Each structure stands twice: as structure tokens, then as C-alpha cells.
């Protein structure tokens, strides 16, 4: 399955010399979404070579950029096909495209359309004017929820690698026969780690605006408290032999460290974190995460051994 579209000029419907030109990335999903949102509107689509990457990311990397656009205008022979000089670009391509430089290079006018292609019909119908709302990149709960599977799959791969070791160490160091110790301590550890993963990859993204703290790692810790404390309560409420306080605390340390790390990684998927901010956050958050991991792990092995 291919995720790219060949760069170049495409006709949507039956455009003529006066039809508008919309510029997009050669990521198939960007192209298809634009095509779909412009249904029944005759227009030209100028597809840039962004190596199959979406508009915003490509603009950040520079592949959806001034040079690529200027060159694509020439190679597509656009000026021989249309009689006007106006191009409509997605607003989120602005980090890569310098409108005044494109004008200087090619004579074409770059007009930045709305952030979302779904606003294009309204934008066109109002005489190519965007409302303030069309200009804002928001991050609603549905968008955040859509990112969860991707975050979860990556985290689960790591969990599948870690779990055999968790059960093995539980069996080796826990009291009693290998198998019963492996199951008793290993199950508790696996549940707590899964809780930390859930907090970092599901709860933190979903509850992002409501979790205390500005730094994502802090939000991850808040999410960990929300998930792990009820889990501990559940263990103590059932007939399951409740682990020693130190064992529970060590696993809380490790799991909240995992949640902080995973939530911090969600900065890459968010639409509002700055590079300077992430750098500042990581300066204190990464040492804490490593500390939680090392101290928690040492303590956990020790509690198994001492029990």
C-alpha cells in the first residue's frame, strides 16, 4: 500500500484557466482529504514532493517549502495552464513557505487558506477569507483520542519485552517455589506496569487539559496517581495476598516513571509544545524518570529478596 501521490498538477472536476489552485503535500491522506473537501468544486491541485509526509511536518522539515513550491510551479507549467497568479496554500505550510519569496521567485501570489481543509468550502464562499477560528490549530479530545493507538502500540511492544523478565525475576527472588512466586509477584508487577502505561498513553492524552501541571511529565504523573492508587486499592480489597508496602511503593515508583516518560513523549504528537519548552521540561523530567526507574527497580528486587 502506497502512502504517496506523484507530485505535479492535478485537475479536480473540470477546471478552466480561471479556476483556483490549491497546493498540498504528496502524502496520500493529505491529498485525499483535500480532494474530498473540495468535492464538486472545479479546481487545480498542485502536489508538492514532501516525501509522503503531511503538510505541517513537511513544512517544519522544509520539504514543503519555498524552493520546492517555486520549482514545482515551473516544472508543472502552471503559468501556461491558468490565467491568474493566485495559489491557495494550507495555513500550516507557512513554517516552510515564505510567501513573499515565492512571489519574488515566480510572480505567483501565495494566499494562506484555513488550517483545516474541511473549512475550505466556507473559505471559498466567503471570498477567500478565513474566520479567526479557521486560523487556529486546536487539539480537541477526538484528535487526541485518535493518537492513542499509535502511542499504545509502541509502548506495548516494550512491555512485551519487559514482562518475561519481570516474571523471571519474581520467580527467582520471590519467596517460595519458582512458579508460585513468579505468578504472585510477577502478576502484581505486570498489572502495575500496565497501569503506568495506560496512564501515560491513554489517560494523559485524553485528560490533557484537565490534568494538573503544565509539563507533560507532570501530567503523566497525575495520570499515574489516578490509575495506580485505585489499582492498589483493588489489590488490597480482594483476597489476592496483598504485597508488602515496600513492594507496592517500588512498583508505584517504576510505573509512575513509565507514565511520566510516555506522557512526555506525547509532546511530539501535540500541536502546541515548543522546542524550547520541551528542552526545559526534559532537563528535570528525564533525571526524575531515570531515578524512578533505577530506585524503584532496586527497591523492588530487594523487597522480593527480603520477603
Amino acid at each position: 500500500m502506497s502512502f504517496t501521490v506523484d507530485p505535479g498538477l492535478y485537475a479536480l472536476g473540470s477546471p478552466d484557466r480561471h479556476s483556483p489552485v490549491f497546493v498540498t503535500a504528496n502524502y496520500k491522506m493529505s491529498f485525499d482529504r483535500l480532494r474530498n473537501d473540495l468535492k464538486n468544486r472545479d479546481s487545480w491541485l498542485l502536489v508538492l514532493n514532501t516525501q509522503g509526509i503531511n503538510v505541517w511536518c513537511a513544512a517544519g522539515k522544509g520539504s514543503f517549502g519555498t524552493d520546492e513550491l517555486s520549482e514545482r510551479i515551473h516544472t508543472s507549467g502552471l503559468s501556461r495552464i491558468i490565467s491568474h497568479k493566485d495559489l491557495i496554500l494550507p495555513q500550516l505550510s507557512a513554517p516552510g513557505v515564505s510567501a513573499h519569496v515565492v512571489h519574488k521567485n515566480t510572480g505567483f501570489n501565495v494566499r494562506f487558506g484555513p488550517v483545516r481543509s474541511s473549512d475550505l468550502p466556507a473559505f471559498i464562499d466567503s471570498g477567500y477569507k478565513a474566520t479567526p477560528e479557521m486560523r487556529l490549530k486546536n487539539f480537541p479530545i477526538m484528535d487526541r483520542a485518535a493518537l492513542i493507538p499509535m502511542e499504545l502500540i509502541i509502548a506495548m511492544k516494550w512491555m512485551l519485552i519487559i514482562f518475561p523478565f519481570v516474571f523471571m525475576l519474581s520467580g527467582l527472588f520471590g519467596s517460595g517455589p519458582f512458579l508460585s512466586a513468579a505468578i504472585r509477584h510477577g502478576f502484581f508487577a505486570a498489572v502495575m506496569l500496565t497501569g503506568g502505561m495506560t496512564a501515560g498513553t491513554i489517560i494523559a492524552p485524553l485528560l490533557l487539559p484537565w490534568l494538573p501541571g503544565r509539563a507533560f511529565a507532570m501530567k503523566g504523573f497525575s495520570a499515574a496517581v489516578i490509575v495506580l492508587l485505585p489499582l492498589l486499592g483493588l489489590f488490597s480489597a480482594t483476597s489476592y495476598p496483598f504485597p508488602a508496602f515496600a513492594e507496592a511503593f517500588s512498583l508505584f515508583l517504576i510505573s509512575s516513571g513509565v507514565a511520566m516518560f510516555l506522557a512526555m513523549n506525547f509532546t511530539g504528537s501535540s500541536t502546541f509544545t515548543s522546542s524550547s519548552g520541551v528542552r526545559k521540561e526534559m532537563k528535570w523530567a528525564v533525571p526524575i524518570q531515570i531515578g524512578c526507574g533505577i530506585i524503584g527497580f532496586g527497591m523492588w528486587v530487594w523487597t522480593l529478596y527480603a520477603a
Partner: protein
Amino acid sequence: MGQFIYLKNVTTLMLDEKKCVGCGICLTVCPHGIFYLNERHARISNRDACMECGACAKNCPVEAISVKTGVGCAIAFINSFLGRSDSSCCCVIEPVGKESTCC
């Protein structure tokens, strides 16, 4: 729901109001609406919402805006720290039917 604000007082965004000619392109391109026009000059109203994407600086015709751009992505920092410069970000995967997700 209100606008998301990440850490405060960290952005490297600088606006030289003396150079500004008041064309308003920064108001157009900013995805977080942090600029406004005041008597034919751009001003910053909501500095902490800046995500350093660089759209404003790139499009300012008189170079009145400067900002140190970069992706606000922890994985990118970790990868560059580990010397994996190629995979600087997680940009390739995008969930079906959703807007740009990364960087």
C-alpha cells in the same frame, strides 16, 4: 474549552516593533493567534502560546520577527542525543482521517 498553553516564559520569539510595517501576515499564519495589530504595528498578545513553528518569521517581509524554530518533540531530542539524526521525529504515521499529528 480554552487554548492550550505549554510552559510559560520559554519561547524564543522576538518581535522588533520598529521594523514592523504592519502588513499583518503574522496574524494570518500563526496557528495559535498570538499576534494582533495595534495602530499599524503587530504586537504579541499571547506569548506563552507560541510553539516556535517559525511561520511568522518565515513570512515577515521585513524580518522583524525572529524565533529559534524546532520541533517540540521529546522523542526528537532523545534521538538526537543518541546520535540518531535521521529519525528526528515521529512524523510519518498519522491516524486515519485526522489532522497533522506531530511536530
